[in-house]
């Protein structure tokens, strides 16, 4: 049995009387895409905020490479190798690709904070890293504002990997993108997976996208894990059923029909 890169055991998070997560277990492996699925309010966001150090757990334990971790800040989590790419991406549109890539972690000669930027070296590294991940930006000095949504997502992923992420948490990377750009992001995910040394936690609402790239699934509902497994073990119907939080499609159809009748009665 391979040692998981991240092991989460009976993780609990409460907000006052509200239990957001009620004892979550999760194993994340290197070289795998782990799809984290669940309806709104299932606890996905709380879980990734715990993993990325934004929240502290009220119970349970997170292990990274077997070592128990206590994250006090996002900085701690990123030092431990957990890189989170949020929906809003943390990019600055007016600044160049290079300046965004090295934002807050610039290479310089001299002393902080007035060290001279090693611009050429940074341009070169940015260009190379972007080619590695599959995008040939003609000019790393172009503003990020000129890039497409998919390219920006890819830039944020490349940046996280370059600065030492062993686990990439992608928070709905394909939402708010056009179809072609969604495919671009999925291609990026597949390429990163191909390196074999990085684990990807892929949060999505899109069943098709998860089927295209995921190796393993975990389904959350009402703060608990309600199912999961390797992709080859799960049938399509089962995925949809678990994604909806365990509601049967037949029930939904019935409820819809009932609702239709109600409106009809009001109108007449």
């Amino acid at each position: 049995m391979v040692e998981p890169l991240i092991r989460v055991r009976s993780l609990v998070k409460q907000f006052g009387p509200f239990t957001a997560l009620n004892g979550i277990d999760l194993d994340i492996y290197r070289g795998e895409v782990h799809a984290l699925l669940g309806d709104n309010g299932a606890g996905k966001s709380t879980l990734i905020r715990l993993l990325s150090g934004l929240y502290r757990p009220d119970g349970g334990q997170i292990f990274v490479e077997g070592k128990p971790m206590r994250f006090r800040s996002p900085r701690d989590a990123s030092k431990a190798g957990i890189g989170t790419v949020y929906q809003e991406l943390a990019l600055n549109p007016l600044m160049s690709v290079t300046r965004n890539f090295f934002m807050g972690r610039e290479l310089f000669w001299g002393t902080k904070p007035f060290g001279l930027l090693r611009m050429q070296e940074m341009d070169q590294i940015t260009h190379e890293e972007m080619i590695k991940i599959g995008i040939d930006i003609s000019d790393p000095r172009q503003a990020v504002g000129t890039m497409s949504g998919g390219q920006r997502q890819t830039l944020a992923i490349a940046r996280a990997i370059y600065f030492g992420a062993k686990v990439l948490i992608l928070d709905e990377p394909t939402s708010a993108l056009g179809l072609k750009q969604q495919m671009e992001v999925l291609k990026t995910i597949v390429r990163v997976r191909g390196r074999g040394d990085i684990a990807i936690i892929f949060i999505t609402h899109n069943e098709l996208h998860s089927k295209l790239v995921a190796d393993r699934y975990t389904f959350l509902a009402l703060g608990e894990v309600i199912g999961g497994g390797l992709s080859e073990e799960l049938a399509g119907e089962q995925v949809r059923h678990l994604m909806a939080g365990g509601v049967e499609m037949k029930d939904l159809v019935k409820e819809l029909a009932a609702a239709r009748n109600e409106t009809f009665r009001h109108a007449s």
Partner: protein
Amino acid sequence: MAPIGSTISTPRVEADRLARTGGLANLKRRPEIGTFLVMIAVVLAIAFASHGTAFNALGVKNNLSIIAQFGIIATGASLLMVAGEFDLSIGSMIGFAGMSMAMMLKWGLPFGLGPAGPASAFLITLIMTLALGWLIGTIVVHSRLSSFIVTLAFLFFLRGITEVCFRGINQSTQISGLPDFKQESWFAAVFGGESFQWLYSLWFRLGGNVNRSGLQWVTGLDARVVWWIAIAAVAYLVLSRTQAGNWIYATGDNRESARANGVPVNKVRIGLFMFTAFCATIFAACQVFDTNTADAGKGNLKELEAIAIAVVGGTLMTGGFGSVVGVAFGAITFGLVANAVFFIPAIDGSYYRVFVGIMLLIAVFLNESVRKRITGGI
């Protein structure tokens, strides 16, 4: 024309959509090009209308005197605006700093610590103004209020304090007839003395710069020209070539994403409020040691001129983008127009404000189009 459905020999990639441009087109993309063209037009127009007197030995000195004043404070305002904040207290800070120095020079150090020299008066004032800049920055950062309203409060507060101190200690809101410190003290001469004497000597030796009796006419430029060049050069270097510069851009562009990437956005902003206070203090020191006077009304409305010059120089009102070189061009343009009345007696001096208003509007529209071009229309 290939029929629809056939394979295209070279597939188009996303990168192709950004047009590759040559040298001239790149020049057109520079944010300061518009200001540069306006500056050239103003220089030519004033040279022509004044029959060259605006650019004779005395004209250059007088023009650069006001240009340097504008340049010093506009550079500070511009860097702060790139980081996404405003400082409306610059003008009142100039008045406060001038009052503080002149009062110490006339009435001695506070708490009866004996007479003050130019160095002690300047340094104590600088410590106070930097502390005020720190205070303004800290309030803005921790209250999360708009810097517009916080610095507006300090605009009134500092002007009021300046007047109260003047009347309370000096019985009058102005001080004049201080000793001419720049004659004896090198420290005072650094602010109030002359610079570039070698250039004016050279000009005389080459046959220009002669007065009616055939001797050298003008001896040099004001010392503040050196301060302007130094402040602008350092600001340019910091903004475009250093790590701090990257932080300033990042803070103004999108503060939250800068923070998420570990940029110390609060320190950047507090530091820049201290920098505008520093610029205001240098402005005041040059004025006090040059004229040996101070007045409670000094620096009035200078904060708005500084912001106008920063905007005309290509600094975005919304932060994240700006050019120190463009601000220098803007300072030259505004200084020349403000001074034009002395060389062209036929015009009304108030046309200066008409010009500022028109330029400001044009610049805001131009800057917006530059911003749209570099962000792809967001």
